[in-house]
């Protein structure tokens, strides 16, 4: 079976780019004052990252950068 190519045309790339929102810095939350708050803050950050990644529409053919070459 021939694997699907991850090479994108410029048009596909432009389409993917146009769907991502510019991320502007948000007002910082107060500093956590104990380990439990710190863990909650870390989990919140992961959730926020997850939500940002979820908003990004990917072409189905896009493979992860597993065979990473610079």
């Amino acid at each position, binding site marked *: 079976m021939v694997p699907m190519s991850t090479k994108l045309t410029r048009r596909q790339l432009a389409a993917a780019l146009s769907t*991502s929102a510019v991320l502007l*810095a948000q007002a910082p939350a107060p500093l956590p004052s104990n380990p439990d708050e710190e863990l909650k*803050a870390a989990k919140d950050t992961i959730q926020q990252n997850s939500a940002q*990644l979820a908003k*990004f529409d*990917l072409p189905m053919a*896009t493979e992860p950068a597993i065979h*990473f070459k*610079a």
Partner: protein
Amino acid sequence: MAASIPDDIFFASITEINQKLKAKEFSAVELAKAFCARLEQLGPRYNALALSLRDKAVKAAKEVDGDIKRERFRGPLQGIPFGAKDLLAYAKHPTTWGAKPYAGQVFDYDATVLKKLTKTGGILAGKLAMVELAGGPSYRYASASLTGPGLNPWDPTRWSGGSSSGSGIAVAAGLVTYALGSETSGSILTPAAFCGVTGLRPTYGLVSRHGAMALSWTLDKIGPLARSAEDCGLILHDIAGADPEDPASAGKSYYYAPQFARDLKEIKVGFAPVDFSEWADPAARPDFAKALETVRSLGVQMEETKLPDFPYGPTIGTIISSEASAIFEPLIQSGDVNQLADQKQIAGLKAGLEIPAKDYLKAMRIRSLIQEGLRTLLDDYDVLVAPSRLGPAPKITQPLDRPSSDRPLPKERGMTTLIAAGNLAGLPALSLPCGFADGMPIAIQLVGRPYSENLLLTLGKFFQERTDWHKRRPALQG
């Protein structure tokens, strides 16, 4: 015999020192003893020293003196004292990774980069302090280190930058001629910028990471912090190359060859004016503006551009957190993670274990597009230039994850996420001191295509021929 070494030598370039060694103005042993004494005396004052290797250094220097006597010249790094970030294994000596849980850790082999440097006559004077676990997923305070906060030689109330904190301090304070650091996302460029030294982040895979602590398999790089772009080129020449022990090794060599640089008139440099005029700290803007003009004066073609729009921060954050927590899972599960100094780092490592596979894979898929997007951008530009950091080093007590001012943020993003973008795409970057703000060094970064180190270093060399920021020295305390 420290008195026989002139003070200027502590701030001299690799080439200058090597010439004086060959001319027998002083011996390699005298040089090693002088640097080691300085490192032992001043290193702890700035929290830069993890481990002095004086005895080994003097022994190695004796061999260099023997080689020089017999005219066995092994290259410009022969006899030059250097330091290594304490994440590089050095056999039978502690390698702490800057973290209390690993304070007693000893390996029985040397990191490949240390083998390479000692083979060409390099003198390892000491292991240098670092932020614990190279910063892990994130940390809040400069004090996130087994050795305390890295104190900036230009003002010890300010941070040195991290995670290669000791490497930046030691070069800036003349405790070694150059140092090895590592970068996952900013850990060479940041201390180089804050300490006023030149730092090179090589292309991913160009320098072996065998024997280095892993923080992120797909992002970690080893590179030099030194006095100049030329010194970075000489160091990279010796440490680059294929290594079967590093699965990410690109199998490529590197030859420092500025003499074969393209005509600068052909070079297209992209920059985003908003980075320099609005994002930069107001105190840094005048010298950043002059730096841009200096780059322009080299004869290159300057054009305005910006980075393609991607969620760089969430992408690199997800990748580093996922990989770091997987790497340090035994530390986390054992509970020893709680011995770390920084509460944010502890929490980040624990939370990282809960990142779902779909998020890591989504980040890695977006990364593919980021690589493609930057490849397309770099079809149009040979080099991108931006501030290495937007302002000078913060105070050591300042939370690093909070803004240092309440200035409203510019609407355009420009290239402020170039550190994350460049690391995600594995691109090389060179940080060049370019002035001062509030009495502290600031710097610009040059970023190029994969394996374009010679172009970046040549531009850096020409920039440093027209400026003297890289030759400024801090007034050391005591």
